């Protein structure tokens, strides 16, 4: 087999795999415009499912709950995790390793275990009378669960960045008369901000997407994934297709925009370097 053939083979294989990955998504998008309720027979074009989706109170309130939950839990997780990273960084090697290993538990454990273990904790808390008549399940348990599985992602995103920082810049700030507090906010924080922001975004996506852990700790509340789950259990409605299509388009748009901004920044940086080099050459 020569190089050309092997490349052709590789291309064909990639195309086939991508077909496999995108076929179901394509089918859903197409059938979200299908007039009949049938999931296999095309009867004509309609936008009815999109219309009824936006009048579906269950989905809209679940979406609102998911967004608020994701936002609040991600903010708390990011603060908690960033503080933790700073604290952990000044501890001994062994303590650091221990804390990191425990923080890995929610990451590597099957989600169902994280879900049920938290549920058991809350059940036990109810036994001891915490939460009173109505019990604890609902907002507080959802919030705690989401913060718990999000914080480790903050620690593993911000931690490596903090370790890479050059301590001499911080020391220089101290030498030049900054108080430790000023030096922290003027020197350390600005350097950590990109990592903290990306950790926050990761938390947001995990939180909005999570089904397993929320499922065991939501009581009667419905996050968006739980609402989707209950929809798939009942007589199915093409509204799900409409919802998936919208979500797919939104995600695609976010990725394209962020990609576009990345490459623009990259080009800007390159032009800056080139101009700097040209100036240097001109001198």
């Amino acid at each position: 087999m020569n190089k050309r053939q092997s490349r052709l083979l590789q291309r064909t294989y990639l195309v086939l795999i991508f077909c496999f990955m995108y076929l179901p998504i394509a089918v859903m998008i197409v059938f979200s415009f299908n007039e009949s309720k049938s999931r296999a027979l095309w009867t004509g074009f309609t936008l009815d499912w999109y219309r009824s989706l936006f009048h579906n109170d269950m989905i809209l309130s679940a979406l609102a709950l998911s967004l608020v939950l994701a936002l609040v839990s991600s903010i708390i997780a990011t603060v908690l995790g960033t503080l933790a990273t700073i604290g952990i960084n000044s501890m001994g090697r062994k303590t650091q390793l221990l804390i990191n290993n425990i923080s890995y538990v929610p990451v590597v454990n099957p989600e169902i275990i994280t879900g049920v273990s938290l549920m058991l904790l809350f059940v036990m808390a109810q036994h001891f009378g915490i939460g009173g008549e109505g019990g604890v399940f609902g907002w507080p348990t959802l919030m705690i669960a989401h913060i718990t599985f999000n914080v480790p992602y903050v620690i593993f995103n911000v931690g490596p960045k903090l370790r890479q920082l050059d301590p001499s810049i911080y020391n220089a700030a101290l030498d030049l008369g900054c108080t430790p507090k000023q030096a922290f906010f003027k020197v350390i924080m600005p350097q950590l901000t990109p990592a903290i922001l990306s950790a926050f975004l990761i938390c947001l996506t995990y939180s909005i997407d999570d089904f397993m852990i929320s499922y065991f700790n939501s009581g009667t509340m419905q996050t968006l994934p739980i609402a989707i789950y209950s929809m798939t259990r009942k007589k199915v409605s093409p509204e799900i297709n409409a919802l998936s299509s919208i979500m797919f388009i939104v995600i695609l748009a976010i990725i394209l925009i962020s990609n576009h901004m990345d490459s623009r920044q990259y080009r800007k940086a390159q032009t800056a370097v080139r101009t700097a080099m040209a100036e240097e050459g001109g001198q």
Partner: protein
Amino acid sequence: MLRSQTSRWAAAPYLIWMGIFIVVPLFIVIFYAMTTAEGAFTLDNLAQIGRYSSVFARSLILAAEATVICLILAFPVGYSLSRLRANKQHIMLMLVMLPMWMNFLLRTYAWMTLLENNGLINRFLGLFGIGPFPMINTAGAVVLGMVYNYLPYMILPLYTAMTKIDDSIVEAAQDLGCNTGNILLRILIPLSSPGIATGITMVFVPSVSTFIISRMLGGGSNLLIGDLIELQFLGNSYNLNLGSAMSLVLMIIVLVLMSFTSSFDESEMEGVM
């Protein structure tokens, strides 16, 4: 301050949180697994699991099948991606990750539509006079669901590992008369083993513990460990103690697997997170 005594206190809130919501719950699982509903010590729950050994066996087998299929499918993808030009690699990686960002319930639901008895695939085959084949509610559909959902988790670590393989090593082997099979066995597989290990964990762990995929694509006849646990905690056979015992066994299965694979480089994991 970066290494001062006072800054250690910044970690205090998290350490308390970690203690209460990560460490304590694990001990509560063990406690529930070893007690009766009244709180007396017993090993009955763990002993009862023997009755469900067929479900445990099915979970392990289906998850293993899905993992092997993912590995076989993903290996060439990882290799081809790692050999593309940098800007193309970027786009292709995005394409691999894009479906992951869609809720997995929706992705699995899409397969329900395709696999049904009068679903799209059967209708398509019907045009040629073939079928209809019963596809949904079979063990094969469950494996397909696992492969589809978790394939990116295998592709990404393999790709990361293979970008580190220098083309000249492969070329040198070719020049020295190595055939394709030997290149695979002696160069590509050994050099990508950290990625293989990470990929196996990342596909096997969610596969063995799922209950959505089996419920949506497997019908009622393909119960997995996850289904059993869910039934004990939120389903009809409400029994927290038995459920905890099952969770404990599942955790041990996962730990044993991890101890096999974690002997390889762990840094691969961070790249995928």
